[in-house]
């Protein structure tokens, strides 16, 4: 929460005590404070869940290692996956949207400020409840502590008979609470974007970031309820003896998979769309060109949103669906490549012929472009059902989705931190430390995950706590683990940079990047009311219009 406290410390003429500051956080309904609280909490959970990943890599560094017991290993990968998706990815996108959307559309706050606070606290308490399982899960009947059923909790492993004790219930309840928080935030975002835009900001003049967040919010509305519904069913199974997923009573274990992935696949796009949103803001500013093909970017994002609801069963090729089903889901999955390709080409088109500035946000975005392309290509490989039969549940799949979520999402989150930190805190992040962060992380990431593809081809399954020597997996696992050390060092650079620059960083001023969207028209950090007078806009780049009166955008739009 260091980020937040520093932001408050800059409030005029006062040096409030810690109690006062905490009280302010608890009662606040301000979208900026809530946004920073989301991001701070998400970064906290990120370090926790990241450390869990490091422990798993340590266990796998050599064959036949017994650093961690199999039971603990199961809990580690379950909690790592669950926390990264629900306590890091979702809240960090909620935080960015919360902080930036009202500023970008020229509003003073979200449409429903109290509901906004409610959404944050639901997520926060849900996260605490999930981790509380480590302390309390063992209390009753001494069976297991934290959840250990995998982040997608396949049935029938989650039935009472196979998962006694309360650990699975912790997983259900915590995610259910977080789900309510996400839905509430999505409703709020939709109401804000439709109803709070400043004068002149028509839908087609909104920054791409706002468009993508609108689509993400819509996807959350449709994707979270299937998960909640499935979890309610599982809860009924476990507590009231219902039979939804009880195969002995005629129930279907595959139904859980369908319900889970109807949520789970759109969820992947819910997580990656904010990455697109950030890249679509940063790449134009640092290429000094407007975004290429804005209407097509919007249309492609909407297309991705729609298609994402028709591809879920590609997670289930190995279940044994009909050949028609396999073909259908393979084809729809490959179809996603079309709008995603449009986006990548448009980002390249934006950079083409531009005067590119290689500042830190841009570096991370370029890293994102390369890595996301690789992630997309391995995705298309896995979309071919026969290929998937061979490699499903291997470390190849793990490497693929870590390329999406780290190489894609996390890189743009780093970019967003370097880009908007000056706006939120008022000081620039240190560039030298940032470069250390970028290069250490990039090298570490590629060491870990490029090599991880190969043992997948050689047949190494995911989620195994150890393996025998002599299968040809040793060297790749060793390299993977070494990469983790570099990544950890890189994250340490970031944390130090965040703390150090908050006090000692160079003053940012209102508009350090010579950018064009409305958040740069107010002070850094912005006052509680954002704008003294609500702005009016005539084009997609209102600040450009003022900076270049000889050639404003509204002549062309």
């Amino acid at each position: 929460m260091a980020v937040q406290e520093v932001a408050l410390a800059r409030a005029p003429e006062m040096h409030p005590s810690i109690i006062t500051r905490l009280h302010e956080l608890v009662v606040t309904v301000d979208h900026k404070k809530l946004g920073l609280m989301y991001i701070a909490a998400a970064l906290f959970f990120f370090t926790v869940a990241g450390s869990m990943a490091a422990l798993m890599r340590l266990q796998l560094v050599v064959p036949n290692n017994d650093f961690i017991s199999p039971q603990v290993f199961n809990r580690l990968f379950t909690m790592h996956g669950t926390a990264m998706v629900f306590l890091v990815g979702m809240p960090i996108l909620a935080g960015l949207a919360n902080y930036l959307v009202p500023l970008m559309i020229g509003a003073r706050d979200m449409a429903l400020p109290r509901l906004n606070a409610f959404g944050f606290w639901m997520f926060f308490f849900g996260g605490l409840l999930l981790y509380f399982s480590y302390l309390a899960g063992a209390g009753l009947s001494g069976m297991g502590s934290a959840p250990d059923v995998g982040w997608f909790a396949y049935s029938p492993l989650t039935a009472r008979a196979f998962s006694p004790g309360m650990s699975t219930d912790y997983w259900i309840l915590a995610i259910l609470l977080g789900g309510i928080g996400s839905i509430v935030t999505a409703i709020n975002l939709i109401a804000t974007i439709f109803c709070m835009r400043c004068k002149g900001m028509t839908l087609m003049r909104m920054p791409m970031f706002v468009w993508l967040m609108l689509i993400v919010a819509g996807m959350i509305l449709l994707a979270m309820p299937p998960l909640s519904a499935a979890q309610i069913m599982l809860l009924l199974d476990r507590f009231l003896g219902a039979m939804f997923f009880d195969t002995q009573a005629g129930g279907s274990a595959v139904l859980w998979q369908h319900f889970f992935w109807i949520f789970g696949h759109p969820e992947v796009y819910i997580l990656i769309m904010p990455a697109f949103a950030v890249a679509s803001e940063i790449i134009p500013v640092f290429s000094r060109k407007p975004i290429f093909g804005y209407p097509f970017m919007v249309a492609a994002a909407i297309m991705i949103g729609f298609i994402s609801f028709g591809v879920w069963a590609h997670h289930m090729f190995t279940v044994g669906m009909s050949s028609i089903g396999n073909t259908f889901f393979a084809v729809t999955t490959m179809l996603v490549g079309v709008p995603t390709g449009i986006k990548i080409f448009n980002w390249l088109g934006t950079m083409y012929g531009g005067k590119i500035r290689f500042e830190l946000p841009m570096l991370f975005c370029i890293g994102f472009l390369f890595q996301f392309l690789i992630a997309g290509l391995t995705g298309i490989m896995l979309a071919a059902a026969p290929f998937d039969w061979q490699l499903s549940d291997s470390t190849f799949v793990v490497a693929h989705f870590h390329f999406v979520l780290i190489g894609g999402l996390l890189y743009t989150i780093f970019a967003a931190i370097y880009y908007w930190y000056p706006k939120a805190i008022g000081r620039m992040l240190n560039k030298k430390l940032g470069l250390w962060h970028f290069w250490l992380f990039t090298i570490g990431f590629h060491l870990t995950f490029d090599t991880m593809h190969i043992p997948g081809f050689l047949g190494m399954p995911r989620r195994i706590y150890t393996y025998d020597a002599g299968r040809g997996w040793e060297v790749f696992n060793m390299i993977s683990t070494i990469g983790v050390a570099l990544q950890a060092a890189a994250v340490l650079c970031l944390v130090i940079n965040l703390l150090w620059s908050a006090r000692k960083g160079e003053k940012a001023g209102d508009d350090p990047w010579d950018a064009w969207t409305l958040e740069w028209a107010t002070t850094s950090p912005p006052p509680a009311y954002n704008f003294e007078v609500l702005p009016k806009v005539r084009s997609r780049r209102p600040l450009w219009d003022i900076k270049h009166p000889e050639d404003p955008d509204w002549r062309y739009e």
Partner: protein
Amino acid sequence: MTSDQNEDHIPDAIEMPAPTYWPMILAFGITLLVAGLVTQVAVSVVGLLLLLLGAVGWFKEIFPMEKHELVPVLPESQRAQPIKVSSRSVARLQAGVASHRVRIPAQIHPYSSGIKGGLVGGIAMALVACLYGFIAHDSIWYPINLLAAVALPSMAMADLTQLKAFDGTSFIIALICHAAFSCLVGLLFAILLPMLPSRRAAFWGSFLSPILWSALVWATLGLINPTLNARINWIWFVASQIAFGMVTGYIIHHSKMVETMQTWPLAARAGLEARGVMYEKGGEK
């Protein structure tokens, strides 16, 4: 939220939603309520009480009027600086400038000619393929059934007699596949032809493209349609491709070219009046 009359005038204070802890209490209540399921009933009871308390408190916050507080506007010295006019000038990326590699077709074949050509070419190709079926296997249904095997598992496992017999489903599937692909490839022809060195349109369209396409099919057919791959006669296949290419190329090449808007000034494209000639929107340096 603000209701000041003169909206460009900077007010002394601005109404913002008042801070409140009730949403947090409500969220905490709900959390305890469900946490009771995995701990003690007493936790649920406390949670329920907090939930009710939070709901009532929240309701009082917004009824009969949403509570606001007045936030004083910061003094002028702490407000945002005026945005300065940039000293940088705008350079535009233009077609024809050295190092700008865009080739923009000034005239194109209408897309409809591509579809038309694709369909007619598809018929020509089908004729050649059926001729092959008739000559080699005494059945015009043979190539049709082979094509249908791409989507029909039953055809993929059929033996020679079944492949030679007429089958309604496979005929329809083959027809759809063939028509769709003919249209798409025809469209591709129509788009690509003006981009290729133009004197040789007949060569490109009739021979080289079918051969390239055949090469692509040769490399991938084993994955897409193993049945067809096992029984295909490549010479006849290339012949049918060339028939397609010649007919499609002929039709497209003889269609009337239409002018694109690509070379028009942007202002003309938008139907607006603007100073000077402006080319692409994207691109200032």
